[in-house]
């Protein structure tokens, strides 16, 4: 037996109580690992592919980067004439409306696209996994992303009702990006018809530049020449997404940290109780020659071990939770990095040690004479 051995025996003495305090830390750490892992996963997923599949530049109405307001198709002609622009593709975004498939209801937005222009630019809508892409003469045809298809159990040839019309799924796309693989698209003119939009309405223009590396320059030109529009390069978009994801990550950390801190208070409570119960024992240790520091070390080490084991259980729990998520959502990936595991473990251990400080101080302050007479 060594010093660690006695510490280990101490925490195993009240198994149920130790288990409950471990559970507190575990839930907190599992929340950190799961939520931050998911936000990491979304982030890398979003940033990996999005920039290459939305065109080099996206043009929306000025001050309306989310493309909720409409523009006239004439904007496209103006953009097309600008130096450095190779192709343009119009996009209509249909306001959300339920898609009834008989297998549940979707509530994501649907794109109206120009099949020919999309092909020229090479967007997510052209990454066909099964079936085919939309073609120029298609009417009530739809392509869907693989994640959406899996979620709704759709196949090539399935029929879905959208705005009271029946659409046939002709193709399933797959980009490897979870968000983009939720996409659905129909021909742009049909989209305008069903949503009762003006035949010249567009929400967004995707632009491909002639020479890679000139995106910023061309976007600047569009902004200067075409009135009332806002051109954003995909790298700028990536940056905006990245900032947004950072905010999400910070928030998930904060929320799960609160859970973990509650677990830490549980540890403090457990250890305080345990120190009070062991007052006499601690008195004996001191009477036979333990220093205050030895006593302090013993209790802090107990806190450390509780935090450490709680952390390990939490990391395992978090990993399991993300695996469950992944099995429920197609192509979903949580990104549990070694850094995240390290951060979560450090957090758990710190909580254990910090939770142990006050109980350890109490133990170190025990007067052996009084303790020995304590019944």
């Amino acid at each position: 037996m060594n010093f660690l051995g006695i510490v280990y025996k101490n925490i195993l003495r009240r198994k149920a109580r130790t288990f409950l305090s471990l559970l507190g830390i575990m839930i907190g750490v599992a929340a950190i690992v799961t939520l931050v892992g998911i936000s990491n996963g979304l982030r890398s997923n979003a940033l990996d592919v999005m920039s290459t599949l939305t065109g080099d530049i996206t043009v929306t109405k000025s001050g309306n980067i989310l493309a909720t307001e409409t523009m006239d198709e004439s904007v496209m002609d103006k953009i097309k004439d600008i130096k450095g622009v190779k192709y343009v593709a119009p996009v209509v975004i249909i306001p959300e409306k339920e898609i009834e498939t008989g297998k549940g209801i979707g509530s994501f937005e649907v794109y109206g696209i120009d099949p020919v222009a999309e092909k020229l630019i090479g967007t997510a809508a052209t990454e066909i996994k099964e079936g085919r892409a939309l073609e120029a003469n298609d009417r009530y045809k739809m392509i869907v992303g693989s994640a959406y298809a899996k979620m709704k159990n759709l196949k090539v040839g399935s029929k879905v009702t959208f705005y009271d019309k029946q659409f046939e799924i002709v193709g399933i796309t797959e980009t490897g990006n979870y968000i983009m693989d939720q996409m659905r698209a129909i021909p742009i003119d049909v989209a305008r018809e069903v949503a009762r939009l003006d035949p010249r309405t567009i929400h967004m223009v995707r632009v491909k530049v002639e020479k890679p590396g000139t995106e910023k320059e061309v976007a600047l030109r569009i902004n200067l020449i075409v009135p009332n529009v806002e051109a954003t390069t995909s790298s700028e978009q990536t940056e905006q997404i990245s900032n947004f994801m950072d905010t999400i990550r910070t928030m998930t950390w904060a929320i799960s940290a609160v859970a973990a801190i509650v677990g830490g208070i549980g540890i403090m409570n457990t250890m305080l109780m345990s120190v009070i119960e062991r007052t006499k024992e601690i008195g004996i240790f001191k009477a036979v020659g333990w220093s205050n520091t030895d006593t302090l070390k013993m209790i802090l080490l107990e806190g450390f071990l509780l935090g450490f084991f709680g952390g390990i259980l939490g990391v395992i729990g978090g990993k399991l939770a993300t695996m469950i998520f992944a099995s429920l959502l197609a192509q979903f990936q949580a990104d549990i990095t070694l850094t995240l595991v390290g951060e979560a473990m450090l957090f758990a251990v710190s909580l254990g040690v910090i939770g142990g400080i006050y109980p350890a101080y109490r133990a170190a302050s025990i007067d052996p004479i009084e303790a020995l007479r304590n019944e």
Partner: protein
Amino acid sequence: MIELIDLKKYYRIGDITVKALDGVSMKIEDGEFISIVGPSGSGKTTLLDQIGALDTPTSGKVIIDGIDIAKIPKSILYKLRRKKIGFVFQEHNLIPSLTALENVLIPLLPEGIDQKKYERALKLLEIVGLKERALHKPSELSGGQKQRVAMARALINNPKLILADEPTGSVDSKTGQEIVGFLKKLNKEFNTTIIIVTHDLEVAKNTDRIIFLRDGKIDREVKTL
């Protein structure tokens, strides 16, 4: 040698001052086996706490091997207890979750335990006749056996001084005699200074000198030899 000079320990309980020790002076030579006898509240345990550096006096001095223990900073007083003094308490005061062997090793834990120390602990358990019980927990031992484990623990650091507070207080008279016999053997064989507190004159008769305490003062002293 241990020397006590006009040792006083007063406690205040509300408005009343309790004189637990009221001017005790005495000398204890190395290798002496003495007993402190007196009725409840006479200051026996308080005196033992003072000699064992567990408590500080209100006034007066405790000098162990020429060192006034009041001059040792409180923060390092534990070293004196660890290196020079072995305690045997009235109740065995063993840790219930540890085995007999582990209980014997407690004083050494902070310094780390090597094979040599391990073997010494086993040897001590053999000396007190409990080698076969080394891996038993206190709940599996009788009262006398527990007290013998506590004695082995007091001896683990090879102390020059053993302080025993009513070591026979919680065992039957036969076991009590065994314990006293063992202490006597220890005193003779290893020249360990032993001070025991007891209210049992039969036990005290086995020691070299009996000091009678009353109301915090030495009432009288009797040499038994």
